């Protein structure tokens, strides 16, 4: 959970990009990495297989600057999307302050999206957290693909977003929607923090 240092007035939050395999979680972080100035980011760590599939996680620390007098830092993680890496997904989810669910907009990936959402709910519950209380936004990625291959944001919203989370159409490869998604989850996480729900919790 968020760590708040009242002496040095610093906040550190953990955001996890979740979703099925090849939905574009790592691409989101890679785009963010290319856009953020060097003095506001750390090294991007990718624990990946030889074929660049995420094995454990990707990690990118960014410095958001001062918000309400607090220096605010975000730790961005991705999980491996492939079904058989569930043990590592659970480890990465530990202590998450917010989740970005990156859905693959392709029609043929709809079942994988639903399975991944159910898996997220089960894994969050195993950490003793009610998924309804966890700040979350949903990104409909790959909206740049030909219309006949994908579902529209409205169709995806109907199929996946039964909790009414903020949603964002995106083309993470070219950056469309990446910034908006990060902005929305940052606001959701900090809003919860401002309500006092996440403050000074045990890690």
């Amino acid at each position, binding site marked *: 959970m968020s760590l708040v240092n*009242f*002496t040095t007035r610093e906040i550190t939050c953990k955001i996890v990009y979740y979703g099925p395999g090849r939905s574009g979680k790592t691409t989101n972080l890679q785009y963010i990495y290319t856009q953020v100035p060097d003095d506001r980011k750390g090294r991007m760590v990718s624990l990946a297989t030889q074929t660049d599939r995420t094995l454990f996680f990707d*990690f990118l620390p960014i410095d958001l600057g001062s918000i309400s007098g607090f220096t605010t830092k975000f730790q961005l993680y991705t999980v491996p999307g492939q079904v058989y890496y569930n043990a590592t997904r659970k*480890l990465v989810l530990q202590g*998450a302050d917010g989740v970005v669910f990156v859905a693959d907009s392709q029609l043929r990936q709809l079942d994988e999206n639903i399975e991944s959402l159910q898996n997220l709910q089960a894994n969050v519950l195993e950490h003793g957290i009610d998924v309804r209380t966890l700040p979350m936004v949903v990104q409909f990625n790959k909206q740049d693909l030909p219309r006949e291959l994908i579902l529209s944001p409205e169709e995806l919203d109907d199929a996946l977003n039964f909790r009414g989370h903020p949603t964002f159409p995106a083309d993470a490869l070219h950056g469309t929607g990446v*910034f908006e998604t990060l902005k929305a989850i940052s606001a959701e996480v900090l*809003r919860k923090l401002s309500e006092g729900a996440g403050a000074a919790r045990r890690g």
Partner: protein
Amino acid sequence: MSTTVVETWTEEPLVRYVAQASARIVVVMTPAGQVLAQHGFTRAVDLMGASALGAAIMASSTALAQQVGETGFGALYHSGQKHGIHLAACQTPRGTLVVLTVFGKETSIGLVQLFHEEFVTALQRAAPVDQERKPILAADFESELNKSLTSLFRR
């Protein structure tokens, strides 16, 4: 070398441990990789990378231990050409903490292990049982968040 602490009760035990064990880097973190105190890093974003990896090693080795019927491994030690790392979890009233120690040729794994035990005892004595929750952000934090993100992405 800089020492920074997020929770002040960690400072005295940390400073003593660094001096006694001649450690180059020490990071005290939660199992989720949130840093409570550190010695040796100057850039916060570099520190976060090390703590994420330390927490991940600890989490994955604990999961592996459970698969072979152990509750967890006490400590991990790796030796390199110039540096060694020692990674261990401990229970405190503040919850489970993970300590990552990086050391050079000026000391040894034996000394690190010896003083690590004392460090854990000191942390257990100093840790507060519970912490008061305080209001964090002003109600209008979102306008500042928007400004920060806009400057971050230069748009």
